């Protein structure tokens, strides 16, 4: 989006949804230490590191593109 417009940039919305998904997936991944799924390579705990990745990326997008008061 151009910077002269007050519209919230699309990156903010992307950041919010990635952040929410990251939290849900990380929480699920932590739960899976007690109750692992029957997927291949579950021992690598992909939900944990993928959740962390989503939280970091989503958090960055939200922080950088947080709407500022005019």
């Amino acid at each position, binding site marked *: *989006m*151009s910077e002269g*417009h007050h*519209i*919230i940039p*699309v990156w903010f*919305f*992307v950041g*919010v*949804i*990635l952040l*929410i*998904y990251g939290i*849900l*997936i990380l*929480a*699920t*991944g932590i739960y*899976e230490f007690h109750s*692992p*799924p029957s*997927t*291949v*390579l*579950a021992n*690598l705990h*992909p*939900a944990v590191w*993928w*959740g962390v990745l*989503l939280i970091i990326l989503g958090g960055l997008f939200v922080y950088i593109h947080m709407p500022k008061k005019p």
Partner: protein
Amino acid sequence: MSLSLSFPLAMWWLAGSNPPGAAQRVILLHPVDLAIIVIYFVTVLGIGFYLKRYTKSGEGFFLAGREMTAWVAGLSFISANLGALELMGWASSAYQYGILAAHWYWIGAIPAILFLGLVMMPFYYISKTHSVPGYLKLRYGESARGLAALMFSFMTVLMAGIDMYAMALLMKVILGWNMHFSIWVSALTVAVYVALGGLFSAIFNEVLQFFLIWFGALLIPILGLIETGGWSGLVARIHQNFPQGDYTHLWRTLGHFADNPMGIHWTGIVFGLGWVISVGYWTTDFLVVQRVIAAKDIRAAKLAPIIGSYFKMAVPFIVILPGLLGLAVLPFKLVPANAVGPGQHGFNEVLPLMLARYCGPGLLGLGITALIAGFMSGMAGNVSAFATVWTYDLYRPFIRKGASDSHYVTMGRTCTILGMLVSIGTAYLAMQFMSIMDYVQALFSIFIAPLFGTVLLGMLWKRVTPAAGFWGLLAGSASSVAMFLLVKFNHSMLAYIALSSHAKDMAENMYRALWSWLICVIVTVVVTAFTKPKPVEELTGLVYGCTELPGEGHLPLWKRPVFWAGVSLALFLLLQWIFW
């Protein structure tokens, strides 16, 4: 998904999918997966409601205010093309044909996208047109515009219906969801957020979809390559499971139609796919061009497709590689969809099977949401395109001229809803008559190659006359219809159209596109010789030689679109060499 190059394969995927009632559910969702899906629906609706305040004018509703940055326009440009049907269809094609399927992402896209950015985008942008039919009106007059607009509006609303049906079928096959529920929930959601936010909504959600598709699908190739021990391990396992076929070479087996399972020749790939089909699609498809026209300035408009080319080049990683991994790691062989017996799975289930193999709760929901997002973005893109073509290229010039801007915005919102209702009808028709999809795909391939000829000549040769533009387009389309029907009613005619008795169905589209493009160009040139051109002063901003194109010499090298296009082309060539 816009009308994409992969449509024929996608239709094959749909036609062969397990019929309702006989389906084995592939995936079981947990509450966290359902939460992820619901959050997606709430988000897209929320974005639509938020953006309504910015779409009160025609420029806002139909063109997203023409203020997209190069990155937003570029990601949306690629997302408009990358739909769930394409993901599913190409993964299953990769399982069947191996890495040959990657041609549709490399030679079938990269040179064409760069051509659009560097050569054609300046004319689309400088002419200030809102659409491809809009450019035809400026260059050739109302007849060419009317013909193109009728075809586009028909195709876009039918495609939205096919997307809807495809999503409902996918949800039925892999999740066991009721098809009516899937059709109506997805249709109503898309209708609401597009009617509210117009092209803004469509673009915003395409950018969202882009991230969801990558994060939803990327784990499959990552974990798959860990499981196989890298690319060499993958190749070794494929050879072990399928010792007869060559699934991992891109060009080596294209010397003869009979040497490869696709039944294609390198001339068809290079000249049919690489030139006519791909350049025709990427430079004239309404959806993808509309996203770039919404860019904030000409440099952003040129850069947007170039940025998109890098991501397009990377798509085989999440689409083709899962299909290859399926060949390597699945403990059972997949079969053609029409031969699926109890306990078996068809080629078309390779992507959901790989998703279920590696992704537990949460990650599975993300993957399914990515597929749903892909389908819904496709529907939204087609419906917003229909609203624009109908309002600006048919209703305004032919039915109600000179009305106020707010009248046309109201028409845009209204025909979004009506277009969606027609699409729902198409979805139900497709449920009853699978062959309708054959005809929708034919419509696309019939039109796009001649349209490319008409637009290209119009942009590069100022002598082409308005009459020649119309008659060339009509002749090219008519010849394509004739070739399609010829092969439909007498399959042996394929040998003549593809110039070889060993050619298979995949070759038909390529050669038919080539011939219809040639016929369009020849007729355009001949009619031009006998008709009167427009005065040069009316061609300013529309044609090479009559348009002052802004230079880039004053910019540092790294800011010039041509530099990044060169890097993209170099990467493309490197990939051809690596996977030769």
